[in-house]
């Protein structure tokens, strides 16, 4: 009889399951960029990662960036980035939009980890809206963690800091050009 109840519980919970993907690709990076710029994405720009930047990046990410330069998209003061960071074992791909030094939007695009996928929900990512970087390259507001998703939370928070830091350099570069 107990086995019967067990099976009923399994079936009932499965039937209740929400129709969203737990792991995998939630949105293609290109689609994120297009959506960010109203369906008409600008040509990508490149930011060369200088040696002096790597020191700050080391402070933020606890590691250096492997890439020599970073692609970003900008128009009308909005800067979009597609960045990746490992949670526990696998990289989490995140789309980030910064405007005037404030985080405008964070969206988890691809989640490959076995656990911690709760970070993809708006109840987590909405916390970053309006967050800025302080002079110590830390977020100026506390981000509440999710129990059981600590490493994913940590990875996304690092990427938020990184995008805000990159924004400072991209904006400076664009100001020089204009």
């Amino acid at each position: 009889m107990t086995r019967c109840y067990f099976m009923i519980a399994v079936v009932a919970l499965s039937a209740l399951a929400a129709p969203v993907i737990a792991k995998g690709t939630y949105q293609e990076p290109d689609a994120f960029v297009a959506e960010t710029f109203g369906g008409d994405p600008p040509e990508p720009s490149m930011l060369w990662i200088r040696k002096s930047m790597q020191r700050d990046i080391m402070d933020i990410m606890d590691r250096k960036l492997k890439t020599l330069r970073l692609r970003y998209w900008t128009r009308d003061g909005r800067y979009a980035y597609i960045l990746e960071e490992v949670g526990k074992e696998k990289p989490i791909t995140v789309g980030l939009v910064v405007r005037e030094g404030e985080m405008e939007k964070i969206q988890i695009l691809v989640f490959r980890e076995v656990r911690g996928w709760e970070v993809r929900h708006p109840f987590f990512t909405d916390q970053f809206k309006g967050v800025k970087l302080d002079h110590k390259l830390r977020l100026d507001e506390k981000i509440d963690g999710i129990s059981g998703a600590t490493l994913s939370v940590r990875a996304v928070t690092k990427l938020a800091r990184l995008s805000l830091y990159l924004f400072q350099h991209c904006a400076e570069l664009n100001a020089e050009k204009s």
Partner: protein
Amino acid sequence: MFRDQKARIVAIFWVTISFIVLCNVNGQGVVPSNADMWKIIQQQQEEIRALKEKLNMVEKDVAITGEMIEQVAEQPGGLAEGGPSWADKTSIGGYGELHYNELTGKNGGSDLNRVDFHRFVLYYGHQFTDRIRFFSEFELEHALTEDTADGSGAGEVELEQAYVEMDLGDLQLHAVKAGVFLIPVGILNETHEPPTFYGTERNNVESRIIPSTWWEAGLALSGEVVPGLNYDLAYTSGLQVPSSYTIRSGRQKVANATAEDGAYSGRLKWSIPGLELAGTVHYQTDLTQRSLARDSDGLLLEGHVIWELGQFKLKALYAQWDLDSSITGTGSDLDNGKDDQFGWYIEPSFKITENIGIFARFSQWDENAGGRVNSSGGSVDTEKEQFDIGVNWWPHENVVLKLDYQNQYIHSEAGGEQDGFNFGVGYQF
């Protein structure tokens, strides 16, 4: 390439001009007509246009080559290997903790001055495909194992986890796993890396009532019901309690374990930023595995909350076992009150800085709550209490140093007290 072409044009241009000038100056050559000059200019314009096109192509090629170089640089084995290698799909990790206890015995309790590398753990995982993976946890406890005839060696080598997990369905909302895994109960049982909790030693409620670390062999299904609400269901091997009906002593650790009676576990966990609410029901039809004259079913109920507000965090947990009342009665081996066992704790903590946190914890537990009598027939106070206060310092997010003070209240007939300091260092990677 461009530089050569450009130099070529410049050279042609100047040679032509020089030729014209020289012809005029010396009066020895023929001055080209306007039509010839126009033709020359047109030819040069055409050559410049062609070179500009080439320049654009070269710039694009350079950009593509740069991206390819970056891709090759980012892949450990390079593009030649044609995909992720075995090493890319295999991961290792681990944690460890060294403890020092300086405790004074009271009320019949014994002194404890001990240093112990309590746990040295290595994780190994392998991703067979995007949907199928293996995970394991291999542990050396107390730094040393030795093969003694009576099994009195100081430590243990344990295989606490070794399972294969597979995602189900196109949406990958659910996963099924088979093998040896941790029972989904409590706060510490599944997440017990030292930097994740306060206090050098694990709390007694999640040691004596929930016998953490508690692992069994079996099948489990887990997944997400709605955003933030997760479930776990498991059918596993069970405990085999000795005649004292002590839960912690009933762990068989999947080592040639008796499998007469299995156990069912179900957990619902609701997690949103700053809040976790969870409850577990665990049931086993016979905790003795039919090895004792008086068998007993066992029902474990557990609930906990983790609440975070700014730098403040509160953890609270309650757990209780309900065993068959027939195990308590009259007789020399009975009056133990083990038919009812419970415990709870509450732990507020505060992060003073990003790297330093302080905590206090009050815990109460009773493994004989059904009522125990002594040899003269009097009832024994078996309720145990402990108050802890301490500090954690994280020099790195994955490294922690801990110092805490514990004060117990335990009746002499229930084992006595141990009060004093604990110091620990731990890490995870």
